[in-house]
C-alpha cells in the first residue's frame, strides 16, 4: 500500500512536467479565460437586462426538454422542425416591441442552438434571434 502511494506520487509529479510545457507552449492549448462571445451570442446577464418580451427556445433533444427546461421555453430542434415550429410562430409577437428569441442547447460545446437560431432567421426573416452563451449549463441553476 505504501509502495503504491509512493509510486502514484512519483507518476503524478512526472505528469506535471509535460502538462506545464503544454500549458505554456501547446499551439492548441485551452484558454484560461472564459470564451469570448461569438456573433449572435448573448450572456444570461444581458438577456436579464432586456426590456423587450423574450421567447425562450430550447434546442436540445425532446427527452432532455421533457426532463427539465426553463419555464415558458418552447421546444424547437432539427429532429422535428415542422412539428415544433408552429407553437413558436404562434408565440412570437411582431411587436412593437418585437419579441426577442433566445435559443439555448446544452452548453458552450453544442451547436444545436446556433443551427436553430440560423434556421429561424433564414426561414422567418426575424432578426431578433440570439443564442445563449453557455446554454443550459448557465440556466440549470435557475431551474432547481
Amino acid at each position: 500500500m505504501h509502495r503504491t502511494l509512493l509510486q502514484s506520487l512519483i507518476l503524478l509529479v512526472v505528469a506535471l512536467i509535460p502538462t506545464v510545457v503544454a500549458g505554456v507552449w501547446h499551439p492548441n492549448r485551452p484558454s484560461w479565460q472564459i470564451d469570448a462571445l461569438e456573433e449572435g451570442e448573448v450572456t444570461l446577464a444581458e438577456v436579464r437586462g432586456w426590456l423587450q418580451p423574450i421567447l425562450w427556445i430550447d434546442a436540445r433533444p425532446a427527452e432532455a426538454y421533457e426532463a427539465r427546461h426553463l419555464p415558458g421555453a418552447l421546444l424547437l430542434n432539427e429532429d422535428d422542425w415542422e412539428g415544433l415550429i408552429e407553437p413558436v410562430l404562434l408565440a412570437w409577437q411582431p411587436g412593437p416591441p418585437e419579441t426577442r428569441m433566445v435559443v439555448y442547447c446544452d452548453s458552450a460545446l453544442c451547436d444545436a442552438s446556433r443551427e436553430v437560431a440560423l434556421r429561424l432567421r433564414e426561414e422567418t426573416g426575424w432578426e431578433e434571434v440570439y443564442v445563449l452563451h453557455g446554454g443550459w449549463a448557465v440556466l440549470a441553476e435557475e431551474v432547481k
Partner: protein
Amino acid sequence: MKIRWLLLLRVVIGGFFVWAGTLKALDPAGFADAIVGYQLLPHAGEVAFALYLPWLEIVCGVALIVGRLSHGATGILSALLVVFIVALVSAWWRVLDIECGCFGSSVEAGVYLWPIARNTALLVGLSVLMLMHQAIDKKEPNTSA
C-alpha cells in the same frame, strides 16, 4: 505462464491509455470543450484537467507497458476510470447530449453505454492486474515493479 498474462494485460491496458492520452494531448482545447459539456467543474478546473489528464494517462500507460512503477500506475488509472464512469453516468442521468471526450473531441455525442461498458472492462482488467501483482509480490517479496 502467469507472468506472460501479466505482461500481455499490462501492454494492452497501458497501450490503450497511451493512445487515448495522446489523442487528447494533441488537442487539449478540443478536450477542454468536451469536459465543459459535463458541467461538473469551474472553468479553471476544466482547463487544468484538459492539460493534465492526457499526460497522466500517457505517463501511467508507459509505466504499465515498461513495468516500472506499475503498482502506482494501476492505482491511478483505476481511480481515473472510476471518475470517468461516475461522470458518464452523471451526464447520462442529466440527459446531457454531449461528447464523451474519451479520445479528445471527435466522438459522437449522446452515446453513453459503450464508453461506460469499456471503462468498466478496463477497470476489471486493472483489478486483475492488481491481484496478479499481489500474488507475485507474495511469492517474490523483493521485486520492485
